[in-house]
């Protein structure tokens, strides 16, 4: 469960990137976080993961406050950033084993998990090569695998589909659905409205640091008779 309560982030003492937003993501839900560029998506995600401290408000992950008990809160989630260019001179397998050590995953579990994910993402033959030799999509896959190696209850994914081939994108979407069905929480940002439409139990639309809409897509569509999702998104962000 994720609880974001009245969270505000101010840059350079004056620019309010995020302004008193509140969201609750229950277990079993997949939330799509949508908004135009610069709306405050990445800032919100950074505050949820402890990369940035909120100036006001609090973020609770499974009831644990990320500011007050950072280490315990960080154990609750797996995070995929929007930049997969990390530790490029480690081999894929070294990176995954490093992440498993960071999250104290026992040897049997890490071996099973890495094998399963490498099969799913067709990365088995790339594990022994340096990440530097990977394409953008392969880097994205290895980062996703690193994020999931400790089987976290909460998934926080910043633009996770970027660069993925159709098979891998499909596999990830299926994994997200299964994870939520098992009573876990998935929170991901995206620009692709169709992905949000097919996958999410709810969407949160952020614009200029404010939550412009938070609820199911069905409820949203009811208010905009017959309009396409794209038109609704443009309307919501224009009027926010």
């Amino acid at each position: 469960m994720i609880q974001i309560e009245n969270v505000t982030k101010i840059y350079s003492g004056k620019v309010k990137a995020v302004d008193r937003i509140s969201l609750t993501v229950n277990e079993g839900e997949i939330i799509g976080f949508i908004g135009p560029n610069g709306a405050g998506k990445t800032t919100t995600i950074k505050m949820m993961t402890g990369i940035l401290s909120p100036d006001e408000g609090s973020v609770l992950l499974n009831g644990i406050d990320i500011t007050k008990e950072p280490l315990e809160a960080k154990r609750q989630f797996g995070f995929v950033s929007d930049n997969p260019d990390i530790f490029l001179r480690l081999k894929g397998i070294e990176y995954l084993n490093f992440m498993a050590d960071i999250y104290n995953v026992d040897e049997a579990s890490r071996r099973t998990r890495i094998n399963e994910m490498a099969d799913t993402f067709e990365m088995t033959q790339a594990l022994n090569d340096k990440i530097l030799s990977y394409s953008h999509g392969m880097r994205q896959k290895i980062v996703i695998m690193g994020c999931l190696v400790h089987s976290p209850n909460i998934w926080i994914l910043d633009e996770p589909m970027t660069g993925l081939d159709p098979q891998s994108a499909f596999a990830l979407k299926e994994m997200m659905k299964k994870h939520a069905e098992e009573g876990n929480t998935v929170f991901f940002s995206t620009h692709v409205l169709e992905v949000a439409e097919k996958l999410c139990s709810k969407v949160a639309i952020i614009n200029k640091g404010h939550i412009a809409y938070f609820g199911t897509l069905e409820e949203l569509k009811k208010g905009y008779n017959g309009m396409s999702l794209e038109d609704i998104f443009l309307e919501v962000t224009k009027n926010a």
Partner: protein
Amino acid sequence: MHNYIALTVVSLKNTFSMFDGKGKKSAIRKFLPILLGVALLPTLFSIYMLAGETLKILIPINQSGVIVGLLLMGIAMTIFLFAIFLVPSVYYFSKDIETLLALPLNPQTIVASKFTVTVLYEYLTMAFISIPVLTAYIQHMHPSFIFYPIMIVVLLLLPIVPLIFASVLIMLVMWLIPFAKNRDFFNFLSGFFALGMALGINFLSTSSTQMSQNAMIELLMKGNDSLLNIFRIAIPNISFGIQALIKTDLVQLFIYVVIVIAIAVAFLLLASFIYFRGAIGVNETSANRRNLKSAAYKRSTVAGNVIITYALKELKLLFRTPIYFMNCVSTIILMPVILLFSLKAGGSEFTAVIAMIPWNEPAITKYLLAGGFALGLAISSLNLITPTAISREGQNVYFMKYIPVSYFDQMQAKVISGLVISVLGIMFMLFPAAYIVKAPIVLVLMMFGTSLLSAIFMNYLGMIVDIIRPKLVWEQEQSAVKQNLNAAFTMIPAFALSFGIFWLIGKLPTASWVAYVFILLLVVLDALIIMITKVVSEKYMPLLS
């Protein structure tokens, strides 16, 4: 021309805005540049004194111009060596290259713009050597007014030719040697080439210091120094620059300027033919794409302690990233080699001095302990690992913030990686040297102990500096270590501490308890700095983003 100016302005803004760290400006950070100036003063003053003393020998034999010649050639040689490292990363492997190649720019514009930025950067290096030497020259020679504008023109144009020569060499290699386009391989290759040259020059200069003063004067009178002659031919404008300065001769200055312009024009013409041939298709690394065998898979997935795993990750990145390997790790190989070269050059005189060392003298023990301490400080400050440990993370510093490992534990892991290299460096220096000078084993082990304690201190100190002012915005790995002033900031306390320790040792009586007190003092100092690191990491790390 318009494109050139636009591109250069953008690159300059990018390069020079990256010189500063990121984050909130604290009082300490505002104060640090002044501290850096203070830290460099002893070195600048030594260069000034050395130049002054050399002039005192040269003036009576009417050879004062030699100092100007040595200065210009020294700068040219340094710039050439630096450029061997700099040119590949700036022209070929920097992150902006793929964007630039896709823009409608001709090769001369890209090369000219990158060249301009590099020249401006070289001025910083040049100022460091030339200011103290020229101050000494002006003070002793009292040159006429015309000397000053000539000096400015000569110095401003000085880096251009050696930089062009290095650029042409690298461009040819990138074009003609297919495997050079593998970035890692090329960086190792160019790194070892430059190190080899540096060692060669060191060996030659060590040999020449063995020459007696009379022999040196005789050689100078004949004007028969082959090394200088080689350089005069290799960089053709330099002799005109030297003559222009010594004789304050405007005709020589004119020829100097014309040669520089001619070489620059020729360079741009050549660049238009060969730059794109090398730059297009620069790849990063190779891959096998083979399944891991079962046994290898098991070995690769063994569980480990978090701090040790983290430290191993740091070491792997240090060894596998050529720029980091050259700047942070290679010193442990380089220093003992230089030592051996120097000892070899010392010859029989050195053996005689060794024979006279009274190893059993009680006073020598306390000075050797202090020597061990200074060795630990020196080796640890040379490897640059902890003062750049966070800077090297660059834009990926966010990783440190979302993982469930405390900031202090992460700092400990980074310090361990620095300590491993420091300890190896100390062992490679101390043990062979002890073997050569036949020092008693107990003394050597005691020295090793104190050097270990000072290495711990120095590595934590570097860590603290990098936590307070990490340089996180950079385009190429080179900037994270070489254009990072953090290592220089650790020098101030290191100098002060070395000085303080030797002063204290001198004051203390010669007795066995002195050694115990000294070691206890170092242990307390280490405990203190570890505690400070914990406080600083918890205060400053949350501010990074």
